[in-house]
């Protein structure tokens, strides 16, 4: 297997430069109905503080790619280097990776419905054994930053509106202060105004905090905020 840095080097160059380096990643689903090559030889890099937007039609493999990057799905081939470390290599602590390195914003919010907004945001910290006072302090701070007021913080997740849910989901993704934010259709279930707000928030996470924000969407309008934009079709990625 060729050294990925050589073949898929980024503009900024150098192994130490890129926060995220994806090299020749493929994933094929096999079922009775047949084979689907959901992700097909995808390679790209992303830096700290960058907003990367991948646009593609439904079924083009966006979610699958994001799951692979979040370690929820194993690629058939290829490498994913995060700060130079291959998360697909055997023996990598995927639990720690999911907890600290990436924050996931799911296509369908995926909040824990029985918990309040505050408890949802505190949950990743709770799993990482953050002291409960600290959990609460940080969860309140994050929710406040997302514009979720005190009353909504104490509201059960299933009673929140779509936009509120999505903002709580973003706050939860930020709970353990990850460098990489993976957002799957963050505006998909929201009206355009609310969607705009959410995109603004995500952009600020890159600009203000210096995180790497990866957004996959079929919504071309988001392309405007991208530092780096790709088009995805039939599992293949092409720059725009």
């Amino acid at each position, binding site marked *: 297997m060729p050294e990925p840095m050589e073949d898929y080097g980024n503009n900024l160059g150098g192994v130490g430069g890129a926060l995220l380096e994806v090299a020749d990643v493929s994933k094929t689903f096999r079922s009775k109905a047949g084979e689907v090559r959901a992700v097909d030889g995808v390679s790209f890099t992303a830096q700290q503080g960058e907003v990367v937007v991948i646009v593609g039609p439904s079924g083009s493999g966006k*979610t699958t790619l994001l*799951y692979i990057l*979040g370690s*929820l*799905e194993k690629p058939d081939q290829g490498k994913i280097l995060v700060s130079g470390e291959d998360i697909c290599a055997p023996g990598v602590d995927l*639990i*720690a*990776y*999911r*907890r*600290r390195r990436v924050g*996931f914003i*799911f*296509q*369908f919010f*995926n*909040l*824990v*419905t*029985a*918990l309040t907004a505050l*408890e949802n945001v505190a*949950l*990743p910290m*709770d*799993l*990482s*054994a953050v002291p409960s006072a600290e959990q609460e302090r940080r969860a309140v701070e994050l929710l406040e930053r997302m514009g979720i007021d005190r009353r909504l913080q104490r509201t059960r997740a299933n009673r929140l509106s779509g936009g509120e849910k999505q903002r709580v989901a973003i706050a*939860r993704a930020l709970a*353990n202060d990850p460098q990489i934010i993976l957002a799957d259709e963050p505006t998909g279930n929201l009206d355009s105004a609310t969607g705009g707000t959410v995109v603004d928030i995500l952009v600020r996470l890159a600009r203000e905090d210096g995180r790497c924000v990866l957004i996959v969407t079929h919504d071309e309008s988001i392309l405007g905020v991208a530092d780096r934009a790709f088009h995805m079709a039939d599992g293949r990625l092409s720059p725009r």
Partner: protein
Amino acid sequence: MRALKRGFRSFRRHPAANLVVVLLLFVCLTFCLSMLAVKLAADSQTEAVKGRIGNYGEIRSSSGYMMSTFERERGKSEAERAREVRGMSEEEELEERAKTLVPEELADAFSRHRYILTYDKILTAGVTVPGIKNVELSSMLDLSKEIKEGAAASGITEHTFVFEGNTNGASASEFLNGSKRLIAGSFYTYADHLEANPVVLVERNLADENGIEVGDTVTARVSGESGKKAEVKLEVVGIYETVEAERQSQKGSFATFNPAGNKFFAPLSVVQTLNKTPGYVELGSYYFDSVDHTEELREAFAEARGDSDRYEFVTDEADYRLISDPLEKVGKTSLIGFGGALGASALIILLAMAIIVGGRTRELGVLKAIGATDRQVVTQYAVEVLCICLVAIALATLATALVSQGIGDWLLSGSENGRVVEEGEEASGYAAMMARLTERNLYKEGGLFSLPGGEKEEAQLNVVYQGRMLAYGILILLGISLLGMAIPVAWINRLEPARVLSME
């Protein structure tokens, strides 16, 4: 610790679903625990009964032998009998007098069996005490001329008293079972028996009527002897009263005649002398360790007795069975009920957890996706299961305390009805009548003159909440909780977050 908190929070946040499971479990567990309580009660009751009943036996002249002797005697005329006695040697005469008695050696030998705990030898005899009048007997004899003549022919007069002899006054069955009570003086002792000290215990009313006090002497006559050598002076060492007299006299007309009411108690050796049957006893009475060894003792007795059917070894096993059989039946039934209810509880928790976990696959996916280890997830669910089971079993424990006695009584009444039917099928007619006539009470129950079949103890079920129940409750709790945990454990291992998170 955090997983515990999360599990408990999850339990509180799903009140409706959990309540349904708790209720279903509660019903099953209540049934389960009640059955267990009944089973434990039945077992411990049986054990308790074992300590008191079924561990008594006595060696005595067999009913069959008594019957045939009786038949033979009846065929003889008074003159024949007198002639027979006159022509007898001393040994033959003793043999004749002791024909319905048991040789002391046989009784002694049997007492050495390893299961025998205590034993006593008893001889009851009609003894003439010329100086005192048996008021009750004489009023009976006065009823008709025939009775009086018949009685006189068998040597019974208004001065005839029942003498009961045993090896130790205090352990005479009526003193042991509380129907008689010493009120003055003291009991004769084993030493009195060994040394054949002429001492006696007298009934209170008889003592009052005849002005007898402790320390006085009464003169009794050795039966079959005459003249000076027939007289034995007996010192009154104690006076007793009959506690049960009142109750017995209410039982019926026959019971109002109670010759045992003014019975004399004396050392066995003294009664043997008075009855002129040295070396013979009416019965050997034994307490052994438990009803479980009845069969061994029977075999040992059969071996000691040899081929002769002259003696028999009878026990109060039937009394024990009368109590233990219904209890055993209840125990069996409740064990089956317990098993069924436990199975149902297991099924409920399995189904409930399958539904609960199945309904929360998305939550499981989220937890895994944000970095929960399988252990964290399983612990959280385990706590939730434990909470459900704990609440259910706590409620069930309370309910059990309320209903288990009722269930126990109900089961017991069911099994006793069965018994009554069996008794109804008992043989009737001549055979049954003869059987009843020859049915003798055990000495343990108060001896020869107490009423047969008076009060037999009945099976009772006292379902108390034993400490053992708590231990079993905890075991059941752990068992069904573990079973319930198996579901999330199995689920979480197969769960792929990528699959469940994209659903909507």
